[in-house]
């Protein structure tokens, strides 16, 4: 990557010339700077408003809820408890279980999702008659809603009449397999997106590079890992981040497929925060939210620093 020199930065005035500027001109310059600065903030305003309304204020309320204990009686004010509620919640089993379930959900969905997406995209990335039909089929899950896809999946694994009713590791009724089955449904739902992104990335790799690698003597597999993968790595990083976010934010499929069960086996952190059965107090849920917030930030930071070292962005 070549960085362009900062050409717009005005050169610092040598002291002499600054002193020589008459006061009127200096005032004019100040006015101009204020006008430009004001204009800049005006342009920033829409996104600042959006951030304030949808991010900063909710974050502030979250902290407020986490540091206050709600009274059981509606009309009594909440009492300030400091970090007591927060530390209690975040050191408890509930948070730990959610953490484990969210972590497993991530581990099940992200690598498998990327690998399957890449495999499908590689298979569909060729000049064959009718390949567009397959490309459309493979990307179709993008167009189906989580609810619809989850209902389809429920039907497939239905213990009485589902096509996969005898596949024990797909059972939603067993605590051992439910989380994996839900993850698999998510992998399938994300596959369209992964497929499209990887296919688009593959199509940007110039044919001549692949041909040069062939002539150099790389076999198909080594050519793929040594040449193609580095060239599509920005897309893979993007997918890794998006899929992790999807995994941490998964809710609808869990609610529809298992409702968090059996026995809380599919209750991820987000599911506990949403708490559709209403078993946790607002303060606890706010504390869990802060925990998830920190977790997400850490994972994203880790991903970015690890992967960006190995990612190659054009020239």
């Amino acid at each position, binding site marked *: 990557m070549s960085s362009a020199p900062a050409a717009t930065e005005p050169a610092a005035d040598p002291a002499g010339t600054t002193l020589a500027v008459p006061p009127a001109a200096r005032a004019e310059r100040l006015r101009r700077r204020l006008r430009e600065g004001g204009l800049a903030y005006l342009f920033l305003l829409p996104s600042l408003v959006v951030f304030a309304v949808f991010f900063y204020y909710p974050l502030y309320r979250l902290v407020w809820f986490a540091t206050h204990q709600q009274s059981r009686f509606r009309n009594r004010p909440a009492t300030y408890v400091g970090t007591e509620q927060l530390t209690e919640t975040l050191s408890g089993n509930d948070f730990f279980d959610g953490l484990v379930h969210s972590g497993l959900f991530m581990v099940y969905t992200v690598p498998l999702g990327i690998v399957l997406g890449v495999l499908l995209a590689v298979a569909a990335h060729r000049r064959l008659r009718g390949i567009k039909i397959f490309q459309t089929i493979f990307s179709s899950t993008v167009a189906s809603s989580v609810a619809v896809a989850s209902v389809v999946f429920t039907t497939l694994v239905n213990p009485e009449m589902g096509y996969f009713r005898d596949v024990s590791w797909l059972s939603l009724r067993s605590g051992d397999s439910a989380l994996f089955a839900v993850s698999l449904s998510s992998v399938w739902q994300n596959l369209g997106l992964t497929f499209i992104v990887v296919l688009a990335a593959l199509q940007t790799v110039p044919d001549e590079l692949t041909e040069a690698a062939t002539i150099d003597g790389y*076999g198909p597999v080594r050519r793929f890992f040594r040449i193609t993968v580095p060239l599509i790595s920005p897309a893979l990083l993007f997918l890794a981040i998006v899929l992790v976010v999807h995994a941490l934010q998964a809710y609808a499929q869990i609610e529809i497929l298992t409702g968090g069960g059996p026995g809380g086996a599919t209750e991820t952190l987000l599911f506990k925060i949403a708490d559709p059965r209403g078993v946790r107090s607002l303060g606890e849920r706010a504390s869990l939210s802060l925990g998830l917030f920190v977790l997400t930030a850490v994972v994203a930071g880790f991903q970015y620093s690890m992967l960006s070292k190995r990612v190659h962005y054009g020239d």
Partner: protein
Amino acid sequence: MSGVTFDGVTKRFGDVVAVDQLSLQIHDGEFMVLLGPSGCGKSTALRMVAGLEEVTSGILTIGERVVNHVPPRERDIAMVFQSYALYPHMTVAKNIESPLVANKAARVDAARRAERVREAAAILGLTEYLDRKPGELSGGQRQRVALARAIVRHPEVFLMDEPLSNLDAKLRTQTRLELVELHRRLGTTIIYVTHDQVEAMTMADRIAVLADGRLQQVGEPQAVYERPANLFVASFIGSPPMNTIAGTLSLGPGAATVATAVGAVEVADPGTGVDGAPVVVGVRPEHLDLAPVASAGADGAAGLEGTVENVELLGHERHVVCRVGESLMTLRHPNDHPAGAVGERVRLVADPKGVHLFDARTTERLN
């Protein structure tokens, strides 16, 4: 080092015939240029040698070995692409080293590899750039890296697909010389594809001219220029191109002449042309001269009637463009040669020894 032989090689893409019955022998150590307009099949021919395209029919040989079904990596060839095809995520050193690492069967140990990379980099003046990525190099330097990657494996044959067309004019001239020098130094067979006749003329030991998938003529550059085998080669090679005009051949007692709609052209050697045959006359710009129009009728001399339409000054020479009947003809003269003024009526006289005669029907050369 090896030669390459095409024996009746044909390549079809569906209904399209890209290369049609190509028979061409490229000698060991020769610099052969495949020249032709885009879509003439020259790149396809090269890609068949590389193994990137299957041969539909015919026999393709590298050295003694028929390679029709040999995969690219076993052909011992190196290829330089128009876009250079450098791996953007690898340093220059890794790029150059790549052919030595990639082929597991022909893998060289690390010390020898480093030595050969250094050697190739030194030949192409890349030593100080070995740690950079291709993105940090100029077009000319990338081109050198591509060449270094080709020479590092000491291949039997170099294949080059328009390697200079992404360079600017000045760099192209310079690199042309360097390629010739590299060929002299390595002595390896080079098959070089281009649509640029200047590259072909200046670098090739021999040129093979292709059009519509068919071989038109093979020969040394000067021979192809001086005696083009047909009308296509005649008009494709040479800049400005050869002037052509249709007429009828008449073999008089004194001299052969071709009568055209706008005047007569004298021919020193009519070759196999027969009296009264429809022919096309070709005259290179440097074999045409201007004469005063008044003298035409007076002494009955040959000449084509025309009007000077434009005079292009190129510094060392001058191109005079004249309208002759329906078409334009170009004359090339040294700067000190008298030129007509724009709009002036002139007579264009061809040097009879420089007149090429082509059969109007088959377009084949007659003399």
